[in-house]
């Protein structure tokens, strides 16, 4: 009898999470018995066929939840600052970061606005949400929740908009102005001149853009015009570079209704195709990165701040966080957030700043994409693009009639400067209006045009300074020009370009070594002179070259306590040439590079993780050799590569639609489709989806 009592006592001393893990019926093992899919996957694409739009949105909601609910939940929780309820204290800093910035507030405002002003679209969103929640109502066995011991909460329309806001924030530049201030304080105004001029960069648009201050209203992609292609019809290619995650950021979907059929990639949690084609038009995006976030500092007296001569009490909101562990024991924490006339107050290196971000307004990107999904020509497409506020995108367009075009989408706030924090107390940096960027930054029917986050145009106003280095852009246009000398461009040519791993920054680096290298620099230069600049996994020179780039950035910028990739390489080179950065870093970086004796593929691998992948490494995608580097078209920055082409997408009118995702369409780790496209993506293969 005593034994029985002891066993019962022991059982109640075991942590509930262990009992859950060991439960074969209600624990993680239950996830093996998953219901059949609601919508089939054809060629790894989610296919939804519906009698009308409402049914299509409902089915999409159901299917997104079936294939990707955990991912959707994580994204909304990150945006709303509620991730620590799900995964515990490790996520608390992230929660405080996003809750402070108020993304959830702007998502709520946007949803209210859409309900009042666009009831027809609001009804479609509600259908999507109904689809998600109908799937959840059956309490499906989703393995991540069975591990964490939580039940999925119902989806709300505002969650869809919170996901949109999160994407917009992640492409908007964060604290760039504050980090630039650190560098300008340390290096002086000459650094600012170098950074703002970006003279070495190549503009996408050949002509200077002139913005009229009086206006008051408010990755890689390229297009090739019909007369340069083998089919005589335009080709559009896009490979947006985002964080690589398991499952992938995107889901590829094809939605067929009697009115229209649209296919392309969508963010799980949002119903609309973001990059895609509907047979009439096709479009793709890369981030322009134009600066739509400003920071303001003030004279403070407690919670009062001086603004244009008057003391104003800052608004306060109290944010409550629930942090829950694996045994579902929760604790609460509260954080008081101050708000000024400019926006929420954040702290950066001990200094208070208010943040003003364009995305914290009501913004209608979802509506824009909905109209773009249905557009049948350029006029209709532009009608949709007009609703697109932020994040500004290099939008490439092609249609079945042979038109190709480029627009920098989005709106841009007019103010004096914007690259450094403003003195808010003096009333500096007030936004006086907005420019609709496509009205100034556009190019209809270029012979061909490429964008790679490089400078959009030389302009008479400041747009941003952290344009990506020109190398990817220049390599794409160089390859197109090379291929044109041999004949017309084919789909296979475009695929070759997306797979290209030649880093043409080596041309600049050779010059740098020649100018400032010592003994080691000359030895490295000698080796680089015999090298094709191809960042292939088998090359030891590629390893040394990457080590040089990495060490140069590190030696130049690490002492300022900023990320080594924060400053573009072109700015690093210009700073070295002007003597702002000690020129000896070139020789030191060369010394470090020559110590490397391993082939590139042995030190440069994909590291694509699931949120729970640190506890369960089997959830992560296989670590395999990654070709390319920071500056190759097939981008693969760093040594543990977790950033790169989040989808490869090609629309060749008259030939087909081709795509590949860095992972699988199904987010369920137990599904054979969880990582089905991963190795084809690594190898640079494609699936024809239309």
């Amino acid at each position: 009898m005593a034994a029985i009592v002891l066993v019962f006592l022991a059982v109640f001393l075991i942590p509930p999470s262990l009992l859950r893990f060991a439960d074969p019926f209600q624990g993680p093992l239950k996830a093996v018995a998953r219901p059949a899919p609601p919508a089939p996957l054809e060629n790894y694409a989610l296919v939804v066929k519906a009698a009308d739009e409402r049914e299509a949105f409902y089915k999409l909601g159901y299917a997104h939840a079936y294939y990707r609910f955990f991912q959707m939940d994580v994204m909304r929780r990150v945006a709303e600052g509620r991730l620590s309820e799900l995964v515990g204290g490790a996520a608390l800093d992230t929660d405080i970061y996003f809750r402070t910035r108020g993304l959830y507030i702007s998502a709520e405002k946007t949803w209210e606005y859409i309900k009042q002003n666009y009831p027809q679209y609001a009804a479609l969103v509600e259908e999507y949400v109904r689809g998600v929640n109908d799937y959840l109502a059956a309490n499906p066995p989703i393995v991540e929740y069975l591990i964490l011991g939580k039940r999925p909460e119902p989806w709300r329309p505002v969650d869809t908009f919170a996901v949109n806001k999160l994407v917009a924030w992640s492409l908007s530049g964060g604290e760039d102005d504050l980090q630039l201030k650190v560098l300008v304080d340390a290096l002086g105004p000459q650094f600012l001149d170098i950074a703002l001029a970006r003279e070495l960069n190549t503009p996408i648009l050949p002509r200077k853009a002139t913005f009229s201050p009086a206006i008051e209203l408010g990755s890689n992609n390229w297009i090739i015009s019909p007369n340069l292609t083998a089919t005589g019809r335009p080709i559009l290619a896009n490979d947006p570079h985002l964080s690589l995650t398991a499952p992938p950021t995107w889901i590829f979907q094809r939605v067929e209704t009697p009115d229209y059929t649209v296919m392309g990639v969508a963010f799980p949690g949002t119903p609309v195709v973001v990059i895609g084609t509907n047979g009439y038009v096709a479009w793709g995006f890369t981030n322009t990165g134009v600066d739509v976030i400003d920071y303001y500092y003030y004279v403070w007296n407690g919670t009062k701040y001086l603004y244009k001569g008057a003391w104003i009490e800052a608004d306060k909101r109290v944010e409550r966080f629930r942090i829950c562990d694996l045994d579902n024991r929760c604790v609460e924490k509260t954080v008081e957030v101050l708000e000024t006339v400019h926006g929420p107050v954040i702290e950066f290196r001990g200094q208070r700043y208010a943040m003003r971000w364009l995305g914290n307004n009501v913004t209608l990107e979802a509506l824009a994409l909905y109209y773009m999904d249905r557009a049948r020509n350029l006029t209709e497409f532009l009608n949709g693009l007009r609703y697109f506020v932020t994040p500004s995108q290099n939008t490439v367009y092609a249609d079945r009639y042979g038109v190709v075009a480029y627009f920098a989408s989005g709106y841009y706030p007019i103010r004096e400067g914007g690259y450094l924090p403003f003195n808010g107390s003096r009333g500096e940096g007030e936004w006086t209006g907005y420019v609709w960027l496509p009205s100034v930054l556009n190019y209809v029917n270029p012979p061909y045009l490429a964008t790679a986050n490089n400078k959009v145009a030389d302009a008479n106003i400041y747009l941003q300074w952290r344009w990506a280095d020109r190398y990817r852009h220049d390599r794409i246009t160089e390859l197109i020009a090379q291929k044109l000398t041999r004949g017309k461009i084919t789909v296979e040519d475009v695929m070759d370009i997306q797979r290209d791993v030649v880093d043409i920054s080596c041309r600049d680096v050779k010059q740098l070594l020649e100018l400032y290298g010592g003994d080691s620099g000359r030895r490295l230069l000698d080796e680089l002179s015999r090298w094709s600049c191809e960042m292939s996994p088998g090359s030891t020179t590629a390893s040394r070259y990457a080590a040089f780039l990495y060490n140069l950035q590190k030696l130049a910028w690490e002492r300022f306590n900023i990320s080594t990739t924060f400053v573009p390489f072109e700015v690093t080179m210009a700073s070295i040439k002007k003597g702002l950065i000690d020129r000896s870093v070139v020789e030191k970086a060369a010394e470090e590079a020559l110590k490397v004796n391993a082939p590139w593929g042995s030190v440069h691998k994909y590291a694509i993780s699931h949120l729970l992948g640190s506890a369960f490494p089997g959830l992560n995608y296989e670590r395999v050799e990654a070709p390319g580097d920071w500056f190759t078209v097939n981008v693969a920055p760093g040594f543990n590569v977790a950033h790169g082409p989040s989808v490869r997408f090609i629309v060749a009118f008259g030939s087909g639609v081709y795509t590949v995702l860095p992972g699988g369409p199904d987010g369920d780790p137990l599904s054979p489709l969880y990582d089905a496209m991963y190795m084809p993506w690594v190898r640079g293969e494609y699936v024809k989806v239309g």
Partner: protein
Amino acid sequence: MSRWVRYIGLLIPLLGAASPWHVLNAALLPFIGGVVYGYFTERRRGVVLAPLAALIPIGLVLVYYAAVDVARLTRFFSIFPLFVGLWAVFWLLFFTVGAVAGHLLRPRNR
């Protein structure tokens, strides 16, 4: 008759399929199953074989999941060996402890 009744003990852990409680499914039901198994086992050697007997309900659960979707079960094994191991250890342990306790509870004159 008692020789056959003890096999009912092997099926008791499977009652967890209808229970939402982890503590019952992971520990108490295999323990109770073990008690029934041990109580109705006449020879001590039968009790010694309890860990092997516990493999039978484990096997039945695996057969069920394999019948549902063998590919998913295989992936589960490769991604989450910890959970499979933990479950097997719990059932083996609690069933065996239950069997010993059941055998000790058994009236001497039987």
